[in-house]
């Protein structure tokens, strides 16, 4: 069985990151956008762990752990903001959220 090299993992992380970016660009509801951002966090984490394995150094694992913690905090805050948005309207489209204008 041939081994999967580091380049393949980097390519997969690139594809996953851009898929998350496409989700942010294409979808309209804030929930979808938040989940797409999660996919992008995870693509970055995959890179950290890939290169930790590449160099045999566990610093990458610690960094990925910190990223997961920050992502969890970000989700908590983001979902709180989304709950606030949904209290105002039935349907939320990110293009209609203009509270910060003026």
């Amino acid at each position, binding site marked *: 069985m041939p081994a999967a090299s580091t*380049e*393949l993992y980097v390519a997969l992380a690139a594809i996953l990151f851009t898929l998350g970016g496409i989700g942010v660009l*294409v979808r309209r509801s804030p929930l979808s956008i938040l989940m797409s951002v999660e996919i992008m966090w995870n693509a970055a984490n*995959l890179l950290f762990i890939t290169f930790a*394995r590449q160099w045999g150094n566990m610093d990458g694992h610690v960094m990925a752990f910190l990223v*997961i*913690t*920050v992502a969890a*905090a970000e989700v*908590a805050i983001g979902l709180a903001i989304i709950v606030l948005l949904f209290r105002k309207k039935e349907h939320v489209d990110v293009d209609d959220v203009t509270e910060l204008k003026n």
Partner: protein
Amino acid sequence: MNFFVYLVAGLIAIAGALGLILAKQPVHQVLATVLNFLGLAVLYLSLSGEFMAVIQMIVYSGAVMILFLFVITLLTARKDPVEKETGARSPQAIAGWAIGGSIALMLATTAIVGRPAAAVAKIDDSFGTVKAFGHELLTVHVLPFELTAFVLMVAVIGVIILVGRQKA
């Protein structure tokens, strides 16, 4: 680093990400995202990151996505799809797919065709285990570890301030 495991888990992760973009119901989106996270956990295992794979499943597929499910059931249970129209054929969506697709193609080909990586380092059996990770986290990286506690506390206080004041 088994190529077969990489291929299957990578395809599962990509399928999950595509499902997130294409699904109409929020619950289906959450399930697709969980699929993506499980594929990534398998990839972490193939990179000898045992502890990170477990954390990925417990924290992401478990806690974070359950939080999403709670919000979805709380807010959108009675309604039809949250988005009025997903706009899959709108010019903006087509532009998003075109830009994202070209960036993905560019990055992926650069990663594969570019400079070949150095030889993969030799690791011993303890690499990626809970013991090694804990040793790394609590001896070398104590300050970042303390900072995560601070970040989580700020997040909790922020959520309480944002959502918990409707009766004030």
